[in-house]
């Protein structure tokens, strides 16, 4: 993240998304979430399964309709975009999916998969131009050109994920939501994909929203981290602050669950249990800035305790 006055690329303002609203099985997938993503940064979003991370990603891309709240992209409200304005927005914001097997249509050739965005936005003047663009994209993600005529099932998991990345890059977006892009890959391939994403970020000055549940990977790639639980955003701060000086008990619990690749340390590692009463006791909580740029969802009293405990 560049210092000075960083430009806000994406702003979420009090975003809410309730499924089955008003019914007995109402699910608060996103519950009053607000945060900003600055231009050029990688914002990591972590939390356990079902905490609403993916839903936030999809809501930003307008795949779900939010119940309330606003989404701003480059200062413009995109919450209720329709038609041509919407497709313009979608050229700027793209997504990389979790499961590379499921996110590629098995009936289409890699060339047509990657060129889908090119075709929709009519970015190619001719067939030759289209093929050339696809080839450049394949090259960018480290695949070779004769892969264009193949079907997705002929590729390995890491290769498929790179095809997914090429598809997202085809429309030359500014902002990419990476929805657990590495959790379906085996560990040897994870580094390959993450490093590719980092490299692409620098070359194309991209902004990422990196969704994951693997804290160590998120710390590696992110500038700032947001921690989610049960649809609420509990803590936001720079990667170092959240990782080294966690405030919220849930963050502490999450961090204590990371296995350490050292048998001696791992043996002594104690898992901190999370007491959910800090979320369920019904008190009103707001995001409070405990340290500069480091926010936590708490009552003023709790915030004071968190702050005191840091010393």
């Amino acid at each position, binding site marked *: 993240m560049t210092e000075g006055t960083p430009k806000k690329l994406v702003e979420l303002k009090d975003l809410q998304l309730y499924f089955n609203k008003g019914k007995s099985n109402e699910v608060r997938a996103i519950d009053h979430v607000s945060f900003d993503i600055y231009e050029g940064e990688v914002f990591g979003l972590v939390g356990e399964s079902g905490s609403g991370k993916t839903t936030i990603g*999809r809501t930003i*891309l307008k*795949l779900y309709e939010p119940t309330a709240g606003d989404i701003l992209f480059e200062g413009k409200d995109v919450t209720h975009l329709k038609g041509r304005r*919407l*497709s313009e927005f*979608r*050229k700027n*914001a*793209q*997504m990389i*999916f*979790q*499961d590379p097997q*499921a*996110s*590629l*249509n*098995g*009936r*289409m*050739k890699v060339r047509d998969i990657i060129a*889908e*965005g090119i075709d*929709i*936005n009519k970015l190619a003047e001719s067939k030759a131009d289209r093929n050339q663009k696809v080839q450049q994209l394949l090259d960018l993600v*480290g*695949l*070779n050109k*004769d*892969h264009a*005529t*193949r*079907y997705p*099932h*002929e*590729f390995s998991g890491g*290769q498929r994920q790179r095809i*997914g990345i090429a*598809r997202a890059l085809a*429309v030359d977006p500014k902002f990419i939501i990476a929805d657990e892009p590495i959790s379906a890959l085996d560990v040897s391939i994870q580094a390959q994909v993450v490093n590719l994403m980092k490299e692409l970020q620098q070359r194309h000055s991209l902004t990422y929203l990196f969704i994951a549940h693997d804290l160590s990977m998120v710390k590696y790639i992110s500038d700032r981290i947001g921690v989610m639980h049960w649809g609420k955003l509990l803590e936001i701060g720079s990667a170092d602050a959240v990782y080294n000086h966690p405030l919220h008990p849930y963050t502490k619990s999450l961090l204590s669950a990371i296995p350490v690749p050292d048998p001696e340390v791992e043996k002594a590692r104690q898992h901190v249990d999370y007491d959910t009463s800090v979320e369920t006791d019904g008190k009103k909580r707001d995001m409070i800035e405990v340290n500069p740029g480091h926010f936590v969802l708490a009552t003023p009293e709790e915030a004071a305790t968190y702050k005191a405990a840091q010393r």
Partner: protein
Amino acid sequence: MMAANTEDFVIVGAQSSDANEHIAKPALSFWQDAWRRLKLNKLAVISMWFLIFIMAFAVVSNILVPQKAANSFNSDKVGVYKNLPPNSGLPIPGWDGKIKAPGDNSATDVYASQGVPDGKKFILGTDNIGRSVAKRVIVGLRISLLVAIVATLIDLLIGVAYGVFSGWKGGWIDNVMQRIIEILSSIPNLIIVTMLGLLLGSGVLSIILAIAMTGWLSMARQVRNMTLSLKERDYVLAAKSLGESSTKIAIKHLIPNMAGTIIVQVMMTVPNAIMFEAVLSAINLGVKPPTASLGSLIADAQAMLQFYPYQILIPAVMLVLISLAFILLGDGLRDAFDPRASED
């Protein structure tokens, strides 16, 4: 520590990344690939050639055997030409113009006893008013195939469009559209056919419409179910987030991925339509005599099954073979269109 026999190993060095990414399998287009896989399935290939031959024959036979020739008979000589057994002109038992009537000890040469002029042979015999069974089967085949294929095409168009639309829209639109299907499927087919027969007069057109009107329901249901599951797939979300229109998503992503289901459904509908047409013809709601269809031929010959089994056997065998061929080909096509099904 394990001591490795280092002399057994040869250092090959790191290969270039290009070589690592190489896929040795030759690149094939979708149709080449499908054709290659279809060829592996012998039964499907035989069925395909059989169906191609039958359809080509049905078209060509329009010139050789016009419907009139199959329907006309000489009313003065019904006694001479009626119920002649198949005669190939060669001394093949059961195909030499002789038939053993129930209760008899030996076969009689019916051609001689009914006084058929010498040299006049009916290769598949004649029916009870002296019309050539061969000609009638050829015409019947034509009508049955026409009814089945046209009805199935209408089925396909309405069923797939309705199913995809209903599944894709979801919510109350889906709810209403499914209730409509349920209401329609609760009306017995025969009532619809009878009503249509009254409206349009019985004939090929009203049968086609009747089969099409009732047949698309199961297609629509299946397609809708597939759509419901496919529309949640990540590649559909990816297409949506790229800004693809709903129509394009349906054509590029949904329908190709349910092609297997659709093809199987179609291949089942064709024999079903032929059978339904046969049933309708049998209860006088189908093609009007003297027009022949495979169904009406079977129905006509049913009464004389014990005396002249060939009259029912020949159209029945045709019906079975065509149905079987459609089903086997459908099976083969479903596997061939699925790139993931290839074993290599």
